[in-house]
């Protein structure tokens, strides 16, 4: 009898371990998470305009129907990436998430103190390299260091009125998720906004 109790206790302990393992590993195995859902919209490395959130056509759960969205899945394995986008004068924000959907960085138009997005995302190692050989052309960019190699960026743009949807969508469609990163040695090209 005592032995059965001991086995029961062992079962409870093992149950606790299973609980912790399930919670910690679930984000890596979830198949309806934001990363996977965004993969449906097209290839990585470029921004995809998400359809406006309307009944029945919500691209992701609990998106604000008053906002237009564009998302880009990116990888930092081949170097830092640079996001460039011209944005409307009204409220916008951009958030960077890791592969598991945790927010690692966010910014709105007022805290950016400018009306366009010019964001360079680098890993800590790439950041150290950028500091060693600074690139003059990135002086105006916001350079952030994130401890991730894969993730996604989501831009929100407020649409005050349905008549402004097409304008917001046109600007989001033109957002560039892999803008050229000029090298330290060569002078920057005339137009760094190579279309991807």
């Amino acid at each position, binding site marked *: 009898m005592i032995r059965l109790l001991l086995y029961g206790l062992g079962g*409870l302990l093992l149950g606790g371990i299973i*609980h912790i393992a*399930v*919670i910690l590993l679930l984000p890596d195995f979830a198949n309806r998470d934001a990363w996977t859902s965004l993969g449906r919209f097209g290839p990585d490395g470029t921004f995809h305009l998400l359809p406006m959130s309307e009944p029945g056509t919500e691209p992701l759960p609990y*998106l604000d*129907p008053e906002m237009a969205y564009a998302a880009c899945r990116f990888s930092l394995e081949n170097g830092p990436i640079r996001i460039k986008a011209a944005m409307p004068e009204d409220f916008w924000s951009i958030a960077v998430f890791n592969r598991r*959907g945790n927010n690692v960085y966010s910014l709105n138009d*007022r*805290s950016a103190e400018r009306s366009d997005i010019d964001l360079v995302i680098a890993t800590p190692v790439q950041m150290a390299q950028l500091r060693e050989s600074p690139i003059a052309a990135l002086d105006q960019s916001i350079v952030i260091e994130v401890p991730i190699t894969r993730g996604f960026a989501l831009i929100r743009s407020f649409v005050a009125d349905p008549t402004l949807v097409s304008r917001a969508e046109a600007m989001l469609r033109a957002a560039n998720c892999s803008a050229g990163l000029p090298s330290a040695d060569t002078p920057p090209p005339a137009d760094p906004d190579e279309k991807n």
Partner: protein
Amino acid sequence: MRLLIHLAIAIAIAIVVGLGSAALVLDRDRLFGAVTRGAWTAWPDSGSADADPYTAAILARSGEVPLGAGEGLAFAAEEDSAGQRLTGNCRYRVTGQTPPARLWTLTAYDGDGHLMENPARRTAFHSREVLRHEDGGFEIAVARTPEPGNWLPVTTTDRIRLILRLYDTPLAGGASIGDIAMPSIEKVDCS
């Protein structure tokens, strides 16, 4: 033989307890870091890099993208100010003041978190289009039948959920959320 039976019992207990408790926790609202003001609850940590593992797991399962701390803060309500569950069977009046924010939106969802198709083609109000009283206060009617003024339609008779999103608000910057005025949700009547 006894050993095998005991082992089987232990493993069965482990699986039931482990998976059962994980499922229970994940089906409930987020456990940690909830900030409740009146009828409204926000999870400010869910939009930061140090979200707890339960929040991360719940977000991964739902596919929801939280508002980043630099973007804003979302408050959800599933009950009215008297503590009773919000349903599409009743009419509600959302009145009062909102915390400081450059912009806010109020959106109605059904119990599963989906927007509701309605003839008025309205799923949300934002702070600049809402009709206001002379003192700057506002009143939004949440109901199935048309209402004068600001009418936020619902089409279900089941549970509903309201989400108030504050954009560019000092509340989201990690500072502690003190005594803030949130709009009240009053039940008018039920059908």
